[in-house]
């Protein structure tokens, strides 16, 4: 790139006074633009307060019933795949909270395909802020807090009930797991959206990785086939969202016999996922700008 961040350039406009155009870091610009657009969406939803309250509650209730199903199951069995209710609650809560966070921040990215089809993506491309930030902030909705609340409640229940020999590392693992997990899910959202530049109706494919992945991670890895576990560990590294770190906290072995230290890899994995997702996004946007469809 010819432009370096931080360069100050003075452009000479015809009539109006001199404009000082400052090139800022794209990350800072992106986060700022995200905040501006998300605020606009918040204000838009506040135009319909009752509707907001109902959908927020509905969002909470739907996810809550999800856990009720697990509770009912444990009325008949004492363990699932060798895991107790509280242990599964830890997996469930960690995955649910991480996914909820990603969904809150990036959840509308699967609308990109529609924007490509109806041409409204073009209106984002003529603005002086990164397109990724604009697409991510699209339809920002606080009602998605419902899912986070539910996940956090289940996680809280697990942490209170479980008898864990806490060490400083295990304590640090909990926030690390949630943040890295959210970042991994967010990267999947971005990669899925990037794929929609070429296949505009692929939002279902994306959903199978995000929503489907979240459901998968709510159960212990021991109940799934080894091939599937391998797939979500090495191909789409969702296992790093909660399985590996949570099993470390619980002091249990991972089915694939990986060493203990892999439990600390989630931040690295999240960084890698973001790098790949970022590259995918760039090439997707480039493909769009050369084909226009």
């Amino acid at each position, binding site marked *: 790139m*010819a*432009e370096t961040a931080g360069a100050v*350039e003075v*452009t*000479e*406009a*015809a*009539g*109006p*006074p001199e*404009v000082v*155009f400052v*090139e800022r870091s794209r990350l800072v610009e992106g986060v700022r*633009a995200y905040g*501006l*657009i998300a605020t*606009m969406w918040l*204000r*838009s939803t506040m*135009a*319909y307060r009752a509707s907001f309250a109902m959908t927020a509650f509905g969002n909470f209730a739907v996810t809550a019933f999800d856990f009720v199903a697990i509770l009912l199951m444990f009325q008949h069995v004492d363990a699932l795949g060798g895991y107790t209710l509280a242990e599964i609650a830890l997996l469930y809560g960690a995955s649910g909270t991480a996914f909820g966070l990603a969904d809150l921040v990036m959840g509308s990215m699967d609308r990109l395909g529609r924007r490509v089809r109806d*041409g*409204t993506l*073009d*209106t984002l*491309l*003529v*603005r*002086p*802020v*990164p397109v990724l930030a604009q697409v991510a902030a699209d339809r920002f909705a606080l009602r998605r807090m419902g899912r986070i609340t539910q996940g956090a409640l289940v996680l809280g229940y697990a942490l209170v009930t479980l008898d864990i020999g806490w060490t400083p590392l295990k304590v640090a693992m909990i926030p690390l797991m949630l943040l890295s997990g959210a970042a991994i899910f967010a990267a999947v959202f971005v990669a899925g959206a990037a794929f929609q530049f070429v296949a505009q109706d692929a939002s279902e494919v994306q959903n199978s990785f995000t929503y489907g992945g979240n459901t998968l991670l709510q159960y212990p890895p021991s109940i799934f086939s080894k091939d599937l576990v391998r797939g979500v560990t090495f191909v789409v590294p969702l296992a790093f969202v909660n399985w590996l770190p949570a099993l470390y906290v619980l002091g249990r072995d991972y089915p694939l016999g990986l060493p203990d230290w892999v439990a600390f890899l989630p931040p690295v994995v999240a960084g890698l996922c973001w790098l790949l997702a970022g590259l995918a996004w760039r090439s997707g946007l*480039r493909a769009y*700008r*050369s*084909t*226009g*469809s």
Partner: protein
Amino acid sequence: MNAETRTDTGTDIRTDNGKGTGTGFIELDNVEKVFDVRRKTGFMRSERRQVRAVDSISFRVARGEMVGYIGPNGAGKSTTIKMLTGILTPSGGRLRVAGIDPSRERTRLAHRIGVVFGQRTTLWWDLPLRDSYRLMHRMYRIPDARFRENLDRCVELLDLGELLDVPVRQLSLGQRMRGDIAAALLHDPEVLYLDEPTIGLDVVSKAKVRGFLRDLNAERGTTVLLTTHDLTDIEQLCKRVMVIDHGRLMYDGALAGLHEVGESERMLVVDLERQLPPIRLESAPSVRTVKVEGPRQWLAFPASESAAPLVARIAADYPLADLSVREPDIEAVIAKMYASADGMEIGDGGARVQ
């Protein structure tokens, strides 16, 4: 072919730092856009075909010009606008707007251009109009004083005062278009692109929009490039018109000249007091009566001629009750031009440029 000197596209062209080279504020040199169209021919098999949406177009627009860009649907108008705004990357040729390469420095260019897509509003549906402007203020980092000044001017000239606190979803199409135009101008763009700015508007709204654009161009020297289907837009706003068809620049010049090139005809619709045989004027051989329906007759005459002497002659010889003049529609003009272009070399974009 093209006498203009061209800077090598391979070298760094940012030396002019925004002033543009020579006369052109917008410069296109043999710009093309080729799309790969894939057609499915079976399971997992597809056939590739190349479509040249824009085929070697060259033109220059000086600062402060107001240019109409017209052509039938699918002619390549939108593709050109999308390349000029940096949405699409050209497949070939050289393109500069204010000295900036749009496809490489899209966000830098965004501060200097305004874009209005006639059929896609950028305003916030559920929020008062004012909020959309506030977002522009912060997103474009417009200095407070300048923002207030620009907003006040737009509000006054576009008659938006009463609408600022109304949610956009409650605005009429015409009000929304005015709102969109104001939104595109708050950051003082040097060039304004309008894609079908009067489409679907009523007569009053159209007049308001046109009047505002004329003032904007005259008083602030904003360069305006507009695409339209409505020839009246061009007649009232643009001294210069460019016609594009099948991705090639067919014509670039004054509107009157377009009628000459297209050999187009205007239509005089005459209502006589009673039914009479077809009107025949010995003194005007270029006029032909094309249709008779009771007392109403349709007379075609070359668009380059004035209607006044013709009307006077008819009024002298026939019992005239009423009359109206119909302008040729752009599709007809272009169709004629296209037919006459066969074998002739007016397809070359550079041929008529300035």
